[in-house]
């Protein structure tokens, strides 16, 4: 220890009530400089100099939703295979290029976008940005390297099939969205589609979908805006491409009342439960009130689902709910995993909480707590450069207003009890809850049958799937 012992507390302290808060210090979301290169590419630069670090992200509005027919998984595999080498650097040289300067390179593909990001010491940013540009603009999709990435993807598909949470998410998507609509199929493809992919497919996808017209470069960290914009111009200014990713067409099938699908997973000691239906798109005008509603239902530790299923009944390690925000409406879902023997009672409590929340709505106190949480926790979401760059990239992908983050705390604090309830009533439909239970069917089915799951709106119909595997094809 450096200092010596300190004096002990002087005088008693009132313990019975929480202490008053101190003086509020406002949070300001870092100002980003926005520019557009002549070729149409957007550039966002934000300075944040707490550490001598920098992060650059190239984000393209082309994700798994842009997969051509019968080529599910191509957008993800194509993005991974960019690391397989460029016209001037082999895969190994590329990896050395990043790691010799301590740069971490990562690829992420969602339904709506592909992001390639690199994080490093700010002094190495020019080199890292040049590698990033080379990798996107001059990929070769070498046969051998492509096969290596493909083999790893295929192995990952096997892993998903045996992971209870991943299997439940894939099965739930399948039963909610149907296999004809992309959201009903596993993100990243299935064995049949992946096995058929060739380097030529990746080349064609990169040519038709990666281009400056719908891409943004986000650079944040211990950097100068002007210098960074010049570097962006040098690396990307002469990128020419007429690429234009396709829009998602069609939609999910109409909801079919309440259903329960039991997906057999031999030897399971828990039931992995998902229930929900088609939710909202990221562009929904009541997206923020809906976040408030969801926080109260299942978005935080003290939300109703978790307090009931975990803290009151001890059925689970945790229960939560959410809306997956995508360009087209993604799922609304409740997820939890419970000891097999209590599958029935647990599901009944989930249904009850969803119904009560949709019908009765939140209390004033619920809304104060939820808006206090969402506004208060906001500054904590932008501590790292990766978080900050990710937020700016999402703003680009979902066309959020320029002042979205700067006004977020104000917007969320303005949400009223009525607005939150209205949003919940509009987007949560208890009669349409489609449920997946991944577990040992021989034990789950009796556990469900013992429990009276007949509810207003009609009984849930039960189907058992002995050998469920997500598929990309009609059949």
């Amino acid at each position: 220890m450096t200092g010596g012992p300190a004096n002990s507390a002087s005088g008693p302290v009132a313990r019975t009530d929480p202490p008053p808060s101190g003086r509020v210090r406002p949070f300001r979301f870092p100002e980003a400089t926005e520019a557009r290169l002549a070729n149409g590419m957007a550039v966002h630069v934000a300075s944040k100099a707490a550490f001598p670090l920098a992060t650059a992200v190239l984000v393209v509005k082309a994700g798994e939703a842009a997969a051509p027919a019968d080529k599910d998984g191509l957008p993800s595999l194509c993005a991974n295979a960019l690391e397989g080498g460029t016209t001037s650097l082999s895969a190994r040289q590329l990896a050395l290029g990043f790691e010799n300067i301590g740069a971490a390179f990562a690829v992420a593909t969602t339904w709506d976008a592909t992001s390639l990001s690199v994080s490093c010491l700010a002094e190495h940013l020019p080199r890292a940005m040049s590698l990033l540009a080379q990798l996107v603009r001059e990929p070769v999709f070498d046969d051998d390297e492509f096969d290596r990435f493909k083999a790893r993807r295929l192995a990952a598909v096997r892993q998903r099939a045996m992971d209870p949470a991943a299997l439940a998410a894939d099965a739930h998507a399948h039963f909610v969205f149907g296999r004809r609509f992309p959201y009903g199929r596993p993100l990243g493809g299935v064995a049949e589609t992946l096995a058929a992919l060739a380097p030529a497919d990746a080349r064609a996808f990169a040519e038709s979908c990666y281009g400056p017209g719908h891409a943004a470069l986000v650079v944040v960290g211990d950097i100068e805006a002007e210098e960074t914009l010049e570097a962006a111009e040098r690396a990307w200014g002469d990128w020419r491409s007429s690429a234009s990713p396709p829009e998602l067409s069609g939609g999910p099938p109409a909801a079919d009342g309440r259903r329960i699908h039991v997906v057999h997973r031999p030897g399971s000691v828990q039931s992995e439960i998902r229930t929900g239906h088609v939710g909202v798109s990221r562009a929904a005008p009541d997206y923020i009130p809906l976040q408030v509603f969801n926080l109260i239902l299942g978005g935080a530790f003290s939300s109703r689902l978790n307090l009931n299923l975990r803290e009151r009944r001890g059925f689970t390690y945790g229960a939560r709910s959410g809306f997956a925000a995508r360009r087209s409406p993604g799922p609304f879902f409740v997820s939890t995993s419970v000891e097999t023997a209590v599958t029935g009672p647990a599901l009944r409590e989930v249904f009850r909480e969803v119904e009560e929340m949709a019908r009765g709505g939140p209390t004033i106190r619920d809304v104060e707590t939820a808006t206090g949480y969402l506004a208060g926790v906001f500054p904590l979401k932008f501590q790292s450069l990766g978080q900050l760059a990710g937020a700016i990239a999402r703003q680009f992908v979902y066309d959020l207003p320029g002042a979205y983050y700067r006004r977020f705390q104000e917007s969320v604090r303005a949400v009223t009890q009525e607005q939150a309830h209205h949003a919940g009533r509009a987007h949560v439909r208890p009669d349409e809850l489609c449920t997946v239970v991944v577990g040992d069917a021989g034990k789950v089915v009796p556990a469900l049958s013992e429990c009276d799951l007949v509810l207003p709106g009609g009984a849930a119909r039960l189907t058992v799937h002995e050998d469920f595997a997500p598929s990309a094809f009609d059949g």
Partner: protein
Amino acid sequence: MRDMGAALANISQDQLDNGLRLVMAPDAGAPVVAVNLWYAVGSRDEPPGSTGFAHLFEHMMFQGSAHVPKNGHFEHLERVGGSANATTWFDRTNYFQTLPSHHLDLALWLESDRMGWMLPALTEEKLQNQRNVVLNERRERYENQPYGNWDERLQALLFAPEHPYHHTVIGAAEDIEAATLDDVRAFFRAFYVPDNAVLTLCGDFAPEDARAGVRRYFGAIPPGQSRSPAQGKAEAGFSTGETMRVEVRARVPLPRVYMAAKVPPFTSEEFYAGQVASACLGAGRCSRLHDRLVRGARIAKSAVCHLLPLTAGATMLVVVVTGLPGTTAAELEEAAGRELDDAASLDDGEVARSVTGMETRALRSLQAVGERADLLSMYATCFGDAGRAREDLAWLRQVGTDDVQAWAKTYLHEANRAVVRYEPAGAA
């Protein structure tokens, strides 16, 4: 020369009369603060028949105290935009919250109430509830997961039954079921005392006000009577005598091998050479394991290596290799074993690259106030000096290639190895 940034520039350390150590690292960057409390107690302190108890106890710390109702801890914090959690590990249990900085006193009030006044709020009903929650945590994270019992098998092979790391943190289900209220009371009195804890504050606050707040809320809590003697025998030497191996046929998607070596602990000077060796072997796409097993021989989907920062006499280096379909766990073990045998040939380029990568990762991890606070609590607990965190990178840069080679040669041979092989059930 790069440093750890302004965020670790002004560390002050202090101690209350009751023995509570206080570390403060103010930084006015964003209006947030992290309150992090380490208790020097973990699964290593569990007597036989009570495995998993330190972790179950951690759950009980969120069940309320004399002035805070059940779930009040989360509700008070969440209302103002705070987050809280805790984790139990081999040597320590950490409790942490991050929140808007003007609510710092709220977190001090909550943490001090359970340090000083947890027992009056204890009930059998709460214990029964959390036993069920923990048993479900065990099912969700271990029993229902492919490869879910790997650590139980690996630790049992690597450490003798009397060693405190012989059993896992989650513990045995029957031990968790057997825990009583008296166990909770005894554990609280032995370990949850101010003189067995480090409190770290990081972020936006005025140090004088914060120090006064800490004294106000924690100052009246009496120190512990005496610490329980350490459990088991930590002296183990760095050898298993021969390769200890177990083969498991189970419902797993791909063959996988876990390999561990018993190596000098976090608190030893040699740990730095170990960290560099571990990074050269299994961190990043240029590491030996990835380069040769994933890229080169193309038998693995992934191949990584970790060195855990444990302190009781020894720690573990753990290699995890997941095979592609068509490979066998035996093949993976052989290939990974060759890399461990060959680690004495690591060269200057590999060492320099690994140190560069570690420096950058260290800086990146310090960006979040919560991680900074946790790091300082760790150094204060393990070395008695939080300031040691600042010197870490300098120590790493001093590691020479010959140190790395010598470390690998001394500890990574086949007479110091535990191996758990998983083969998919039904595979030939």
